[in-house]
């Protein structure tokens, strides 16, 4: 059992008035930023590289490396931007919203450090349209920090202008994709851009832009408070620090927890500090490890560490940390149909395979779940999914952005790993779980 030696993000969440500037400063707030701003910008980036901080949005890309892709001012004299991706809409994930609600100044302090390192004088926080309360808290925090002179003409008293704005989305899942987010920030339709060029070279308004997740940036103050080595040692393998994961589904204590990188999925589900196990007599049938777009794992594959690289052998991904547990009373077809409907609804419609393929997959799944399935349907389903994004391995998608993969990988992994359940539906011409396809509720602790 790995023990979380020190909390990083959630350390001060329970302290009183943590989401106000006064409360944050009382707990030593903005001191890390003061410390970081002593360093030259390049040294900050080096420090972030040393800390092995990796993007918490889903792909796990090393943050310091991402920053270093921004061309130097001699090469590209355009202004730089930092865009914070707070459009947390992956089903099963609820971590960024708690940072915004409970500790918004942690994010703002991180923004101060990141913008100074990048030479960005403007930062946009793109928050999810449905985040009504979190964005109100964040707006207040930005106003407080600006009034206090932290942001504005002089960042923390230094000769560096930094303005932070919050922009609220309109409720599209696709705007969590970084280039669609930039399009949306520019006031356009949220359609992902073609890559290359990547946002670090041509981003917001055609200028070099770094897009980072809320949790990634919120880790920065701790890195500069206690040092990159400390952060790196907290982690495991090539992933530094800790991560926030959200456990939902058939566990006794669902919620958002900060875990060490070497915590295994099994520990997360069964440990007293986290999920506290399943109701009496139930076993884990399936577990989605990183938001609904991650390929599903079976109950036998739970001994995998929650580190970013550990999921590669299983052809899955750590994603955004949305762990969804399904026990043996749940109907796999119904679960997949629900996932598939989400992606059919949220496909932006730009490129063909995703626009037409996702609704088609959802239709076939509905047909099977409602007992109208036929023998060839599973092959058609797999064929359609493979035309959107073949699996395994991850990353062969034929679409412009990863939304195609996000919809096709669950389909292929569910059908491959739980083929018997699907065939049973077709054989019986009905759902074997009867009128309780979502599983049995009511006897949790």
């Amino acid at each position, binding site marked *: 059992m790995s023990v979380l030696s020190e909390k990083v993000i959630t350390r001060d969440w329970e302290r009183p008035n943590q989401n106000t500037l006064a409360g944050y400063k009382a707990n030593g707030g903005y001191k890390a930023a003061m410390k970081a701003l002593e360093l030259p910008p390049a040294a900050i980036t080096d420090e972030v590289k040393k800390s092995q901080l990796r993007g918490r949005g889903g792909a796990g890309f090393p943050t310091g490396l991402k920053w270093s892709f921004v061309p130097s001012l001699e090469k590209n004299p355009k202004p730089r931007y930092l865009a914070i991706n707070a459009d947390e809409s992956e089903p099963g994930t609820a971590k960024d919203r708690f940072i915004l609600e409970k500790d918004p100044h942690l994010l703002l302090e991180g923004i101060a450090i990141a913008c100074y390192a990048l030479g960005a004088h403007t930062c946009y926080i793109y928050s999810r349209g449905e985040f009504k309360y979190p964005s109100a808290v964040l707006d207040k925090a930005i106003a407080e920090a600006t009034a206090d002179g932290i942001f504005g003409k002089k960042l923390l008293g230094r000769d560096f202008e930094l303005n932070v704005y919050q922009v609220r989305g309109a409720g*599209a899942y696709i705007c969590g994709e970084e280039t669609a987010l930039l399009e949306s920030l520019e006031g356009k*339709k949220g359609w992902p851009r*073609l890559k290359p060029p990547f946002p670090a070279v041509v981003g917001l308004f055609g200028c070099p832009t770094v897009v980072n997740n809320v949790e990634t940036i919120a880790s920065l103050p701790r890195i500069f408070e206690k040092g990159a080595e400390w952060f790196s040692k907290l982690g495991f393998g090539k992933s530094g620090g800790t991560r926030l994961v959200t456990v939902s589904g058939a566990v006794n204590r669902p919620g958002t927890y900060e875990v060490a990188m070497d915590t295994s999925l099994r520990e997360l589900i069964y440990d007293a500090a986290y999920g506290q196990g399943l109701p009496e007599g139930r076993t884990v049938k399936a577990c989605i490890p990183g938001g609904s777009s991650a390929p599903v794992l079976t109950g036998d594959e739970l001994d995998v560490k929650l580190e970013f690289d550990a999921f590669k052998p299983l052809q899955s991904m750590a994603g955004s940390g949305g762990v969804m547990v399904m026990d043996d009373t749940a109907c796999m077809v119904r679960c997949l149909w629900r996932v598939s409907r989400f992606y*059919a*609804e*949220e*496909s*932006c*419609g*730009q*490129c*063909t*395979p995703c*626009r*037409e*393929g*996702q*609704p*088609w997959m959802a*239709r076939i799944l509905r*047909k099977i779940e409602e007992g109208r399935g036929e023998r060839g349907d599973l092959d*058609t389903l797999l*064929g*359609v999914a493979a*035309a959107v994004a*073949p699996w395994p*391995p991850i*990353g*062969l998608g*034929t*679409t*412009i952005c990863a939304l195609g993969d996000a919809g096709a990988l669950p389909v292929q992994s569910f059908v491959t790993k739980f083929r018997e359940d699907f065939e049973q539906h077709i054989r019986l011409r009905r759902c074997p779980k009867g009128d309780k396809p979502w599983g049995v509720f009511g006897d949790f602790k």
Partner: protein
Amino acid sequence: MSEDKKPAEAPRPPPGPPPPKNPGFITFTVDGKEVVAKPGTNLIDAAKTVGADIPYYCYHPRLTIAANCRMCLVESSAVQPGKLVPACQIPPTEGVVIKTTTERVRTQQKMVMEFLLLNHPVDCAICDQAGECKLQDYYMRHDFQPSRLEGGKVLRHKRKVLGDTVVLDQERCIMCTRCVRFMSEVAKAPQLGVFGRGSHEVIDVAPEYGKLESNYSGNIVDLCPVGALLNRDFRFRARAWFLSAAPSVCTGCSRGCSTVADFMGQDVYRYRPRENEAINKSWLCDQGRLSYKSLNTHRVPQAVLGRGADAKEAPAAEAIKYAAMKLQPLLGSVAFLASPVASNEDLLASFAFARDVLKTSTVYVGGRADGQADFLLMQADKNPNRRGLEWIARAFGLTVQPFDALTKALDAGLVKALFALGHEVPEADDAWAARTEKLELFVLSATNESKATGPAHVVLPAATHVEDEGTFTQADGITQRFRRAFPPRGEARPHWRWVAELAKELGNDLAVASSREVFKKLAPAVPELASFEWDKQAPVNQTRPGISTMAAAADGRPPGWREQGVPNLRGLSIP
């Protein structure tokens, strides 16, 4: 074994990018064949040079890359195996190996075709695009299986009128966004957009515009690879496969856009733009697009002798005799009004006639009045051949006088007799008719009937440019050939032929039997036209200059083969 004995080599520096095989160019492989292309060449275009036909919908060489149809996915050695890349988006790099015909690529093309047809109504039977539809073409080539979709399709607006020229069938749309990109990038009128999301999204006019209003909106119909955007003028008028196509030139203004005149029988059904990098790129304005209508309607079918109540139709031979008899006593005092709407061949012959037979040293220039110009193609000068007219007049030693000079002379009574080409003059028809009413003799060779043809003593029916071979010289001095689509209507003959026959009747045989002979005989005297190789202008879709004087139909067969094989179809008579 020999490898074991090799001495250990010093560690090499990490390999950089390989030096280019052909400096200044990019060399790569497509389907096992080596391609040498200029840097920046699109992979789809480059692959065509070695015969690899990568299918695509959204790509257009004159628009930005959208890469949203995903039809052009190919395998590339530059990415991980199993990954497909869009050929339109990924620029070829030195040494890369592209495969366009592997099993993986074929499967994907088949699936993308099935995806595109999922919500497509497949109403080809009532679709105007049928026969020239990329969905049909690629279905036969890449899919060719029934759809596996069960249940209904997404229903959308079936006949959405976007503007005066275009109607949209949203169900047929495959969301390639070519039209959206064209309107914002080329037409500079970003009026179209994509509305909605996912499989329910539609193309529509942005609400703040309400209606598609641009002089270039007709081009989105040509750009549309399927039958979603249709031209309201052409809609439901002909099946594409019954039309033949003749390379032609738009006569709407002095830009001289290259066009294809689609015709059936002796009717032109539409103009389409023909690729011409120097003049019109791939575009055509809506005014020019509709200018074909005068080729079909209000034509002068037969010669008319006498004016007012005495007017009677007469056969061509009688008209020649009559006109010659009338002109004979007045030779030397007949004014000559030339038209910059006529072709170079017409002008060559008629200027020779004016100089040698009419014995005049001045030509007045009629034609159309100036109109509006715009930022892209449309010119203020609405006459297709003013430049050619000026060149030929100068070479023939004729003084060019503006139309105003002629009206002044007419009003002062200095001009008693007039020989005119073309019915169009840069003033109101009524005013012109009142002026010419006073003339003792007015001989007019005209394509169309108008108020201006009324006062003429002799109206000779002239052929339009689609009814004869010839050349126009546009505003920038580029001379272009146009080709004969079908024989002239009724008794119509080209201007040059009327003039040549009149000259013969008046004792000065030009000895020409075709517009080619007119050009060969008279153009060498014009320095600007002397080097123009009339015979060697490449026909459309043929890179090697051919000698064929026949226009080629879209299917490669000679134009009008259906009609001319059946002589009495649609009242057609073969001369």
